[in-house]
């Protein structure tokens, strides 16, 4: 489904974030990428959502080269990915409801679909009572749940979660992981990065370990080993 082929990323300041990385992800997998800060986890994610381009190598989604897509195809492709970031990246001047509705409206869903689905996903992440709060009126864990709701509302093929628990306390962390696992069980591929041992152990599943821009381990059912 996703295939990284000899991807190298060297930033303009000369630092190598990814060094000849190759691996594939199958549909419905729950893949956890672990590594210290600066190991290249976030860069790996940015390649997948084409927020940044590789210096060399190719990233495929199904058979398409992500970085050769036209703007229009890119927009469509991104609607098949749900993204969750460490810093939530909600839209400040929109309420929780509107943040989620925005993703649906951007995808061209009808008003009745929006009205039906948004409360449903908010319920799924247990935020039905805070629907009309603005991001600054929500706690970190709540914001991240809104971000997850936004990511899943268009029923994407993949959820990409970059350190989604990085800013959260343990209780909220496990709440988020539980939600991601539930999404995975419903058939969505989940692509998660973390440096939190507890998270890796809780997830189980495939673990890819990165160090200094290289993939050093790839375990089918791994534990956190660094």
């Amino acid at each position, binding site marked *: 489904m996703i295939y990284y082929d000899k991807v190298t990323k060297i930033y303009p300041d000369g630092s190598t974030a990814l060094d000849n990385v190759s691996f594939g992800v199958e549909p419905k997998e729950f893949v956890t990428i672990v590594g210290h800060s600066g190991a290249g986890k976030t860069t790996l994610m940015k390649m997948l*959502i084409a*927020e940044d381009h590789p210096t060399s190598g190719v990233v495929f989604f199904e058979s398409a080269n992500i970085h050769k897509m036209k*703007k*229009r195809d890119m*927009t*469509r492709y*991104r*609607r098949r*990915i749900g*993204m969750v970031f460490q810093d939530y*990246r*909600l*839209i*400040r*001047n929109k309420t929780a409801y509107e943040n989620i509705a*925005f*993703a649906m*409206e*951007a*995808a*061209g869903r*009808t*008003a009745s679909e929006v009205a039906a689905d948004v409360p449903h996903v908010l319920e799924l992440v247990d935020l039905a009572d805070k629907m009309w709060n603005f991001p600054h009126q929500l706690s970190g864990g709540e914001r991240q749940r809104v971000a997850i709701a*936004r990511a899943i509302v*268009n029923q994407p093929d993949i959820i990409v979660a970059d350190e989604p628990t990085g800013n959260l306390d343990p209780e909220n962390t496990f709440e988020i992981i539980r939600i991601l696992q539930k999404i995975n069980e419903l058939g969505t591929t989940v692509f998660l990065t973390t440096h939190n041992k507890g998270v890796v152990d809780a997830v189980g599943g495939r673990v890819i370990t990165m160090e200094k821009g290289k993939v050093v381990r790839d375990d089918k059912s791994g534990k956190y080993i660094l």
Partner: protein
Amino acid sequence: MFINLKRIIKTGFVNFWRNGFLSFSAIIVLTLCLVSFGAIMFADVFGHAMVDQVKDKIDITVYFNQGAAESDILALQQTVDKLPEVASTTYISSDEALANFQNKWQNNSLILQSIDEINENPFPAAMTIKAKEPSEYSSISDFLSSSAAMTASGTPLVDSVNYGENQVIIDRLGRLIPDVEGAGLGLAILLVIVAVIVTFNTIRLIIYTSRDEISVMRLVGASNTYVRGPFVVSGIMCGIISGLLTLLILAGLVFWSGALIAHIAGATVASDLSSVVSIFSAYFISNFGEIFTIIMSAGIILGAISSYLAVRRYLKV
């Protein structure tokens, strides 16, 4: 397509309202910019009116020989009227000249008595000529001293033309007026450019605060149009509100300006230059449609284009 448009417009309105402070500052800057547009328009009108007043004060007077027959003079007036440089001519017979003089000095018996002493009308028949442009007086003056202004028998009709006396002033004004108009235009263009740049940069800074959100919208799968649309709608709203504010401010200034000019100029001058005193209000009322269109469209276009261009920078993701 239609539903997208509806959503874009609605989001634009909502954002405009929720970003209250930012919208407010955009409106302030845009209004200042539009007021300066308006000020330029009015300064131009005022300048033209002043120049016209000065031009209107310039004329030359032709004094005819005492013996010249009135029929010859009237024939000459007709010829002069047909000259392309001439705006208007006024014939004053010697009787009229005397009557005007007596009228003017009616409270001064000494002067009136001295006229009576002479026992004959000392005033020659005269014709005042206004040219379309101050620079054309010399050729008119040349024409009057030429053979065209002779009787059939060859005696000259014209005794003197006072062009010579006023020549220096007339020439200088003729050269000065185009210079002043040119400088005014240059200054106006400069001011417009400055105003547009300031407005554009303000809106760019406002949208800069939303740059992260713009990239999030792209990453969530919104198309460029869908991201950009609401910003442009907000820009247009700022333009409309600023335009209306500007028209209000201009109206206030215009009607206050009459009183101000009268105050500065003093009552006597003001009554003499009544057309200048009320020039702004007269212009504002008679050209309201045009002013409305210019100010409103400038506001809307400036708001929309600034927003459109400012968002473009952050859509590259």
